C-alpha cells in the first residue's frame, strides 16, 4: 500500500470509488456496497406502515418527529403534520418556517398551552374536530407519513374516543406511517404501536440550570 495515500484525506462528501474505501484505497466489505439498493423507497403496498410513538417526560418527542419529517421529505414522501395543543398564534416557529421551505405544511389545531386553563370546553371541541381532520387524512391515503403531535394529552383526557383511534389506525391504508407524540402514552396506544420510544430526562436546562426555551432549539 502506498503510504502517501494514507495521509491524503479525501473529501468525505464525494462518492466513494466503487468497492474502495475513501482512505487508503482499501477494499470495503460487501454489505456496504449493497446498502443503497436495499434502502430505496418501496412502493406503498410493499412498505411496512409503522405506528410510531414518542412518549416520556424528556425532550425530543416532537423534535424526533420533525427529524422524521426531514428524512421523509428528502425521500420525496408526502408528510402531513398536525399539532394538537399548539395554536395558530405560535405557528411560525422554526420548524414551520423550515418545513414550509421544504413544501410541508404543519397544521396547528389547538389553542395554545392548556396548562393553566380551567375551562376546557374550547380545547375539547378543538381536539375533537382536529381528530376528524386527522382521521380523514389517515383514511384518504394522501400522505405517506402522518404526524399527530401532542396527540396523547387530548386522548388521555378522554376528549377523543380511543376506540375510534385504534380502529382508524388498524384500518389505515397499507404502508402509511403514523407518528404520535406526547407524554404518558396509555397501554392501549402502546399496544397498537410498532415502535415506542420513551424520552427520559437525564438533565434539563430549565430544571437544572434555569435556562429557558430558546429560539431555534426549543421552538
Amino acid at each position: 500500500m502506498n503510504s502517501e495515500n494514507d495521509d491524503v484525506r479525501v473529501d468525505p462528501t464525494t462518492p466513494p470509488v466503487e468497492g474502495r474505501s475513501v482512505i487508503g484505497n482499501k477494499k470495503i466489505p460487501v454489505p456496504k456496497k449493497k446498502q443503497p439498493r436495499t434502502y430505496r423507497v418501496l412502493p406503498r403496498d410493499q412498505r411496512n406502515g409503522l405506528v410510531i410513538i414518542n412518549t416520556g417526560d424528556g425532550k425530543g418527542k416532537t423534535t424526533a418527529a420533525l427529524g422524521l419529517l426531514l428524512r421523509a421529505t428528502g425521500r420525496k414522501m408526502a408528510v402531513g403534520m398536525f399539532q394538537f395543543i399548539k395554536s395558530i398564534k405560535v405557528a411560525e416557529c422554526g420548524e414551520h418556517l423550515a418545513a414550509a421551505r421544504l413544501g410541508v405544511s404543519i397544521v396547528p389545531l389547538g389553542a395554545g398551552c392548556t396548562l393553566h386553563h380551567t375551562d376546557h370546553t374550547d380545547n375539547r371541541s378543538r381536539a375533537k374536530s382536529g381528530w376528524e381532520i386527522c382521521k380523514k387524512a389517515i383514511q384518504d391515503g394522501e400522505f405517506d407519513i402522518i404526524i399527530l403531535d401532542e396527540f396523547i394529552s387530548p386522548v388521555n383526557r378522554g376528549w377523543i374516543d380511543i376506540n375510534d383511534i385504534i380502529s382508524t389506525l388498524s384500518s389505515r391504508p397499507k404502508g402509511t406511517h403514523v407518528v404520535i407524540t406526547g407524554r404518558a402514552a396509555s397501554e392501549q396506544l402502546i399496544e397498537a404501536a410498532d415502535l415506542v420510544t420513551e424520552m427520559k430526562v437525564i438533565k434539563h436546562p430549565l430544571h437544572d440550570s434555569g435556562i429557558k426555551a430558546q429560539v431555534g432549539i426549543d421552538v
Partner: protein
Amino acid sequence: MNKIPLKEKYPLLPREERTGLLIVNTGNGKGKTTAALGVLLRAAGYDMKIAMFQFIKSSAALSNGEHIAAKELGINIIPLGDGFTWLSENIEEDKKLAEEGWKLVAPALQSDEYDVVILDELTYPLTFGWLDKNAVIQAIKNRPKGMHVIATGRNAPPELIEAADLATEMHLIKHPFREKGIGAQAGIEL
C-alpha cells in the same frame, strides 16, 4: 388577521446573548439522531448556521433522506466514517477515520461561523477510545459563547453527560425489528 409573527415577537438573540447548550441524546432507543435532525430543521427555520458531522456513518449515507432534505435547506451533513463498525475489517482504520474526522470538527467548534454544531454518533469514537475523551469534551467546553452543540450516540460517557446542559435518554419500549423483524425503511430510519 393582526397576529404578530412569532419571529418578531421572539427574535433570534445575538449570539453573545444566547445560552449555548450542550445537548446529549443517548440511550438504546430510536430518536437520537432523529431528534438532532429535528433541531436542525427548527434552527434552519430561523436561518441559523448549522454544521452536522456524522462519525461512523459512511458516504453511502449521502443518499439518505436527511442528507437530501438538508441540502435543500442549504446544509451539508458530512459523514466522517466508514459504515458501522461491525462491518469493518479494520479497527485501526476506523480509529484513523475518527481522528481525520476530528480534524474537520475541531475547527468548526472553534470558529464563530456556526450557531449549531451537531456531532452525530460522537459517543462511539469516545467509548472505543478512538478520540481522546477529555480533549474532545474540553474542545466542546471551549466553544464560542452562544454556540449550541448536540452530541448523539449510545452509552454517552459520564464525563459528557456531566458537561451537558440537556441530556435525554431515548429508551426503547417497542421496536419493529426486535418484535416483528421489520427492517430499516427509507424515509423512516434513513
